[in-house]
């Protein structure tokens, strides 16, 4: 059982080592793709086991909980690991078309795999300090991907990214230290018991704010999101696709995990804070997106707006709301990765990403335009694409709780999202190229297959989720049920307690 949990985790690191040793030949990129494929298989095996047999857990190094490090996968972790490997494989294939030999020689594929390993670790760990370690692995690897190429804009973005993220990790670490001082444990299942038994509940509610700020900054919620639009438009498109799909979602995952498993003492207070955060994040994100003219900056602000919807589900905290948030999470990871990948192709074909300087995509590449429209419509929540269903669930959940204003805000934000994405559409696709230059697909050259295949595959996935939402809905319901009554999680970890 324990190897089922460890394979998704060790495969990226093994791939990173091999890909680095082979970085000077074309073998490196194939190793990266093969490793990602194996990781996808491992994640599928884990997902099937978890959905058949319930929560699985294992103790690393044979040291018992709560002293040793627990790896544990419930439905949420299994789904997140599966999403990581799906986007990981797509981006690994896309990178074959985008990353040039100079970047490969610096170890691009290797660092990319280490990033995937860090993300997987964060989803699988059952130990708060170990979660911090995986955050650091992610931060270092993503910094490497951000600065690779060494352009001044990249250094500028990377410095902002690293400084603000370091503040978040210091916040996280301080919170961990103080929480350990109060409860004497850092194993998440053990913390659940320790917090309920604690004689200082007020102090723990205050401590939970450390974690809210740290994870909130990682997730890019209002008002802590400024690092995201400052940096995500600078690196390679492959890197920004994996960042946008997964890095902020690790923050959301951590919030979901800690605020359903550990910090449940004063839900009235924490949920009120989260609700304000969620609404402001949605609104500010979409307004920011409307003010931008660079494709990746628009999409970056759209990430912020989407995070608002995810936090909204957690803040409402009803089973329906959490189901909606998880469904939104699944949909959003796939769609966001896809939009960033498409923007890379737009840049190659039209010669830039600034909407004022490009145009004419539709006449040159009508099929590619459809591949952009699918994730764009899905993101704005058009039926019957994948974004429609979670938004229905979230709006229904807020109406059930009598939160009319919140439901109205969510709908208005969706409308503004459509406006922002349709501006992007009409500028980049419909408008003739301002320099009267005819964009040409020939610029894609032999990389065409590697660039378009992952976009098409993710687009197909979006369509399938949209047309057949029932399986995803059932998965999301299971996740929500496990999060709201964590008995299974606790027994799975306690089962390996002495």
């Amino acid at each position, binding site marked *: 059982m324990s*190897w089922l949990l460890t394979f998704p985790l060790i495969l990226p*690191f093994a791939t990173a*080592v091999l890909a680095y040793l082979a970085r000077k030949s074309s073998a490196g990129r194939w190793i990266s793709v093969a490793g990602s494929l194996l990781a996808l298989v491992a994640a599928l095996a884990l997902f099937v086991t978890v959905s058949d047999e319930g929560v699985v857990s294992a103790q*690393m190094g044979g040291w018992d909980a709560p002293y040793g490090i627990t790896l544990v996968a419930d439905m949420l972790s299994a789904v997140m690991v599966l999403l990581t490997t799906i986007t990981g494989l797509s981006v690994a294939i896309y990178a074959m078309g985008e990353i040039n030999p100079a970047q490969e020689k610096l170890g691009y594929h290797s660092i990319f795999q280490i990033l995937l390993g860090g993300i997987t670790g964060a989803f699988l760990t059952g130990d708060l300090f170990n979660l911090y370690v995986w955050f650091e692995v992610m931060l270092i690897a993503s910094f490497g991907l951000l600065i690779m190429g060494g352009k001044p804009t990249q250094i500028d973005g990377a410095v902002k990214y690293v400084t603000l993220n370091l503040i978040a990790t210091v916040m996280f670490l301080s919170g961990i230290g103080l929480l350990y001082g109060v409860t004497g444990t850092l194993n998440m299942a053990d913390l659940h018991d320790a917090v309920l038994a604690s004689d200082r509940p007020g102090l723990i509610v205050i401590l939970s704010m450390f974690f809210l700020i740290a994870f909130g900054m990682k997730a890019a919620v209002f008002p802590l999101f400024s690092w995201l639009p400052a940096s995500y438009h600078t690196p390679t498109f492959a890197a920004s696709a994996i960042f946008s799909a997964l890095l902020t979602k690790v923050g959301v995952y951590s919030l979901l995990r800690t605020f359903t498993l550990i910090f449940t003492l004063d839900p009235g207070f924490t949920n009120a804070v989260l609700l304000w955060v969620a609404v402001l994040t949605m609104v500010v994100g979409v307004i920011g997106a409307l003010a931008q003219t660079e494709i990746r900056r628009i999409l970056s602000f759209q990430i912020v707006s989407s995070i608002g919807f995810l936090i909204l589900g957690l803040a409402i905290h009803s089973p329906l709301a959490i189901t909606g948030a998880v469904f939104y999470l699944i949909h959003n990871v796939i769609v966001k990765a896809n939009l960033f990948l498409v923007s890379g192709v737009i840049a190659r074909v039209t010669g830039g990403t600034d909407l004022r300087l490009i145009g004419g995509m539709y006449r040159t590449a009508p099929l590619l335009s459809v591949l952009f429209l699918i994730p764009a419509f899905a993101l704005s929540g058009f039926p019957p694409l994948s974004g429609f269903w979670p938004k229905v669930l979230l709006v229904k959940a807020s109406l059930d709780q009598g939160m009319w204003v919140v439901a109205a805000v969510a709908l208005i934000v969706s409308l503004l999202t459509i406006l922002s994405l349709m501006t992007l559409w009409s500028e980049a696709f419909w408008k003739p190229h301002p320099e009267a230059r005819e964009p040409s697909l020939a610029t894609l050259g032999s990389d065409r297959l590697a660039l378009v295949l992952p976009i098409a595959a993710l687009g197909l996935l979006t369509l399938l989720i949209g047309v057949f939402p029932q399986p995803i809905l059932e998965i999301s319901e299971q996740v929500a049920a496990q999060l709201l009554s964590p008995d299974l999680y606790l027994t799975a970890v306690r089962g390996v307690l002495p």
Partner: protein
Amino acid sequence: MNSVILNAATRILVPLLLVFSLFMTLRGHNDPGGGFIGGLIGSTAFIFYAIAFSTAEARSALRIEPEQLAIIGLGLALLAGLVSIVFNEALFTGQWLFLGASEGEKGLPISSVLLFDIGVYLVVMGGILALVFALEEEV
């Protein structure tokens, strides 16, 4: 830097630091020490060398790119974790081999934990040297 004192001292310090770093790594299993601190001490030997002579000299003395050293270390640490797959135990469970063990004699213990420490040593040394060499060459 061109200083006779530093050059002469470096010639004596480099082997001492390298031996000391190995000592600290091996000592780490039961006492303070280990791969991390060993790797730091070992890297100072090459940093001294780079400051006293030149980064190019230090690079050729190292014989292998520091980045490569770090990733090989990561591979070794991973292997140390994977040894337990053969014995069907959890990842990173320590596996022990007692060389020449007999009745009443414990023998020489060799373990996957030691391999892990060596991996950490190489990761730290390679990482630090990659950073320091890059910074030195920039000036």
